């Protein structure tokens, strides 16, 4: 089956992201397809390249990176929610005249149209609340 996930909770502040990560792994293990993971609300912080948990804690950013590399899943961060909260790619940094960008290259900033598209093209949409 084709799945899309909507993640709303901030990583490290809520369980939302780790629950979604484990769910994604279980999906892939069971032969399902992940059409898109859409990060909205405080979950946009998942996109920051700069987060660094202590070595004895799960590095969520590395987990997404692995999934991206191994399964090429589509990790999309809502551009408006991200820019507002300080998660920017090069384009947005230039556009808003910020001196640096911080989006990890596993992710892509895009619009809410990507979430609309995901609801249309997925058999299941699972929301991971904050």
């Amino acid at each position, binding site marked *: 089956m084709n799945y899309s996930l*909507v993640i*709303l909770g901030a990583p490290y502040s809520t369980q939302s992201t780790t629950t979604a990560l484990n769910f994604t792994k279980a999906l892939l293990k069971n032969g399902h397809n992940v059409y898109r993971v859409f990060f*909205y*609300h405080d979950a946009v912080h998942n996109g920051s390249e700069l987060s660094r948990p202590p070595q004895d804690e799960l590095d969520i950013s590395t987990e997404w990176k692995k999934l991206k590399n191994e399964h090429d899943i589509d990790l999309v961060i809502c551009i*408006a*929610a991200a820019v507002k909260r300080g998660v920017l790619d090069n384009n947005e940094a230039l556009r808003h005249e910020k001196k640096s960008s911080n989006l990890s290259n596993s992710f892509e900033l895009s*619009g*809410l*149209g990507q*979430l*609309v*598209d995901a*609801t*249309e093209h*997925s058999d299941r*949409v699972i*929301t991971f*609340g*904050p």
Partner: protein
Amino acid sequence: MNSNAIKARKKVLVILTQSPYGNALSREAIDYCLAAAAFEQDLTLLFTGDAVLQLINDQNPSTINQKDLTKTLSALPIYGINQFYVDSNALEQYGIDNDFCVPTIKVDVKEISELLVNADTILNF
């Protein structure tokens, strides 16, 4: 940007549960609705719990440095979204009625269950 890029066909139920200013999800839900409308998605909105408080007229959140959510909500009909279902129990709980920023349809528990049954996809904000 091309609104024909997606041929919308699914019935999406957006369930709103958050109060207007204590949580940004209320505004982010409306932002989703505006985007969905641009792609002509078949959208139904259900306001339940604290989300019924979003509908109260005469809000003036400039006092707390926020934009007026009712102004944006009232744009939704222009975007073609007209199905605003409101949980009558939640209205009763807060003792509010009528005088809302959009025309609403009051629904009871049974009718709300039907909304869930009839949806293809549910998004919870």
